[in-house]
Every structure is written in C-alpha cells, then in structure tokens.
C-alpha cells in the first residue's frame, strides 16, 4: 500500500465516505421530512449535499490526476 499517497488516500477516502453516507444503512438516519431546509425535505437535502460533495471530489480527482503522478513526473520504469 506504499503507493497510496496522502492525496490519493484523501480522494478515495472521501469518495468512500460519500458513498457510505448515500448507500449504507446510514441513509435511514436521514430518512425524515423534518427539518425542512429551504423548503425541501431533509432526505432530499441529504442526498443533494452528498451528491455535491462527491461530484466536487471527482473534479478534484481530475485536476490532480486522481492522485497519481502526472506523466512528466514519472520515474524511469523498467518492465518486470
């Protein structure tokens, strides 16, 4: 696991957290109408919030080459 840099760990860790908030049984904690936020039921707000977090993380992942070195930074690689 040495190849997991702090940046890569943060990106993938954030994604796992986002998916857990949306798709694990934790979603049932948000399965309620109140408190309504901006006139929207809480379950909808919860889903929109985590959707936004994950979409933003995908953008960060793209901008950082998903935590991998860009090709210009690659070390010389020998084949096995």
């Amino acid at each position, binding site marked *: 696991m*040495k*190849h997991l*840099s702090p940046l*890569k760990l943060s990106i993938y860790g954030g*994604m796992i957290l*986002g*998916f857990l908030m*949306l*798709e694990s*049984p934790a*979603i*049932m904690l948000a*399965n*309620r*109408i109140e408190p*309504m936020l*901006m*006139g*929207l*039921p809480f*379950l*909808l707000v919860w*889903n*929109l919030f*985590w*959707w936004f977090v*994950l*979409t933003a993380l*995908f*953008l960060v*992942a*793209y901008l950082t*080459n*998903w935590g*991998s*070195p860009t*090709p210009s930074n*690659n*070390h*010389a*690689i*020998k*084949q*096995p």
Partner: protein
Amino acid sequence: MTGSLLIIAAFMIIPLMVGVLSARQSQETSEDFFVQGRAMGSTAVFFTVAATWWSAFAFLGSNATFYTNGPVFLTALAWNLLFGFMYYWIGKRVWFLGKRFNYLTPSDLIGDFYNSEALRITVAAITLIFTVPYLQIQLTGGAYLIEVASGGLIPFWLAALLFYFIIIIYVWIGGIRAIAWTDVIYGALLFFGMMYAGYYISTQVGGPTALFSQLQQSSPEHLTMPGPNGNMGYPMWFSLFAITAIGAFMGPQIWLRMYSVKHGKLFNLMPFLLGLAAFAYVGSVLSGYSGVLLEPNVENPDQILPIMLMEYAPYLLASLIMAAGASAAMSTANSQIHAVSTVVTMDIYKRYVNREASQARIVYIGRLSLVGFSLAAYIMALTVPGVLVTIGIAALAGTAQLIIPTIGAITWKKAHPTAALAGLWGGVACVLLMTFGPLSAPFGYHAGIWGLMLNTVLFVGLSHVLHRRDTAVVERFTQARYDYDAEYHPERLPAYAQETPPTDSYNYR
C-alpha cells in the same frame, strides 16, 4: 396540433440528417463501423455515453417511481456517481486492453483473458438475452411519448415503427459515428427536457417549496421510505443503486463506448461530468411529486409526465419536452441496436460462421443484425406488457453479472475460467429463478444482488482452489497490466518506490 406534429417531424428528420452527414466520414471497415476507429473525441464521448446511459428508464421511469413509490428513486444520484466512477476505474483499463489486443465486444476481452470458448459464448448470450428487454422498454417509452404528443394521431404501433425506421437508416449508414453525432442532440434535449419539465410543472402547484409543503400535509408517506405502498425501503434503495449502475455499465453499448475513446485522459474527467449531469433528476423529483397533487389517479404511472404536460403546459412546449423524452429512449435504443449487432457479427458470425469474412462482409452482416434485433424489440414492445422500471431492472440484473469476471480479467492473475463460468451461470440462474421462478428474493433485496453475491463467492472461491496452466495468456495480461500502470499509475510499481529495477523473480500481481 399541427405545431406538435411539426416538432415530432423535426425530431425524426434532424437526427436522420445528422446521421447521414456523419456517415460521409465513415470507412467501410468493421473497426470504423463498430468503434469509430478508436478515435472518438471528448464531446462525442461524453454525450454518447450520457445519452446512452440515460434512457426512458430515467426520463419516464423516474417520474413514475416518485409518483407511485415515493423517494426511492433518489438513489439515482448515487448510481450516476457510481457509474461515473466505474467508467474511470474499470473503463480505462478495458479501453487500454481493447486498444492493445484489438477488442470490439465484451466477449473479446473476457474470452481472451480466460482463454475459454464456453465463457466467450456465455458472455455473448448474456449480453444478447438481457439487452433485448431493455431495448424493448426504450421503444415502449418513446412510442408512448410520441402517441401522446400527437394527440393520438400517431398510434403506439406506428410511433414505435417510425422510431425504429429512423434509427435503422442512420445506424445502417454511419455506424457508431452517426450514433455519437445524433446523441449530442439527443443528450442536450434530454437534460433540458427533464429539468424544465420538472420546474414548469411544479409551478402549477406554486413552485418547489409549495409543492413539498402541500405534499407534507396531504401525502407525507411520499417523502420518506418505504413510500406510500410500504415496499420501497432500504433494501430496494441499495438494490436499485447497485443493479442499475452495474447492469447498465456492463451493457455491450457501454463497452463499445469504452473501446471507442481516443485518449485515456478523458476517462479521468468522465466521473465529474456524469456526476454533474445527475442533477437533472431534480426535475423528475419535481414532476413526479407534482403528479401526486395534480393527477392522483393515473392508471399507468409511466404516462404521468406526458399526461401532466398535455394538461398543464402549452401544447408546443409539451410537445418539445416529450420530444426530449423520446430522445432519451432513442439515444439508448440506437446504441443498443448497434451493440447487439456488433455482438452477433463479431462473436457469432465472424468467430463461428465465417472466420475469413472480408471487412465489407462483416459490416454488411452487422447491418442485417440491426434490422433483425430491431424487429424482435418491436414485436416485444407490441406484445409484452409491463412497467418500464420493472422490466428494466430485471434486464440490468442479468448484464450486471458480467462485472465479476471483468474485474477479475483486469486486476487478478489468479482469476480462473472455470470459476468465472460457474460464477456467471450461478449468478444468472439466481436472477432468473428469483425473478421468474419459484424462489423469492430474501429480505427485500433484488434478485440481482443475490446473483452478484453468489457469483462473487463462486468466482473468488474457485479461483483460489484451481490453478491456471495457460501461463502464456496469463503472462501476456500481466505484462499489459504492468504497462498500464507504468503509463497511468507509475506509483504502483515497485520500481517507482525503490527507484531500482525489479528483479527477475518479481511477480507482478
């Protein structure tokens, strides 16, 4: 009425013209007809993947589900994100291997890695059998919309026939290039239509805030799981998330859209773009819930959106939005017809009937297959009734089973062909028995989830017990995976960390 007929005519004719124009760049080779010479650019890739992935299931099925079953379809936000993530993580590897070994179909990759004819045939059969019902729901959804938009002047059977006639012409002429070009139009219309329909219809009850406030008073069970019917709780929430994303991603039409990409870097961006596009589902939330207040007694929930549009929107606007809905269906149907014809041509005709077939002959057989599968889907749409989402999920549960051997092929050198075959048969049998047979899916989870679990257990367990003897094939893929990492994830290689060349005894994964 004349205006809406003109819109329907434009909806039919403009894509036809675009398809015909795109065909001027076509070459008479199978690689060009099926994967555009592996040179599809970023705009076309995004729109054709998004428009293929978003179907009548999304446009009509989402409204119908909010209308009848409450919030369970909100899980669509997450399944779009999962689909995007898979397109990056799995799709990029599939693309790399496809480019290196010249693959065109799912069977090419899976059959080649596992070095098994039985597996190759099984994969081709799964893609064909489970894609046709999903194709049927596109036709049904699109024809519903055209029938309603024309005020019944164009009956369902004729709408469906027109629908397929147009697709066959431009796919026949231009192959995947024509589809990608037309999907740019369809995709733009689809996202506009979903968003605007939701906003417009919700204004009929006072806007989004008033909508939710009224719904909380009159039908609060629509706003939380398990919904008004009491059967759409967490198990179905999770099942829809996993089965829809994985099943659609493993459809042959998406495989072709992995193989077609020109540059690997595009895969890095697609999760963001596909995730962002998911916001359009807010439109479905608004229109589906508005239907609960405005039209509470619609018999066929798949028709709730067109019925509300005809009732509450100006006629021309309603027709335009319905054309957008038909775009969702058409952009998926054209890709599916093209994909199944690719499977028939390359996995059956070229491999087992005529190995020496010329390029022109292969393209011709591909075109004939277009007509055959279109006809099968047309007949099914006229004769097999069903709710769009129900049929769609059953079909997706079948293709979803392909994810297990695919992940094995791209990541795991110990993955064994017998294990992959047993897993696939077990998974598909589980789906069929729990969907159509005597067994019922336990604990409320969809049959596809149980199929995936059985598939995984068989695949991993047997792969650990059995050992592959075809070392040449295994090493060829090991080398390819190494080259992939060297190009895109050099930090994964020991040489990167140690800055020393690996020894001869180093066993890469």
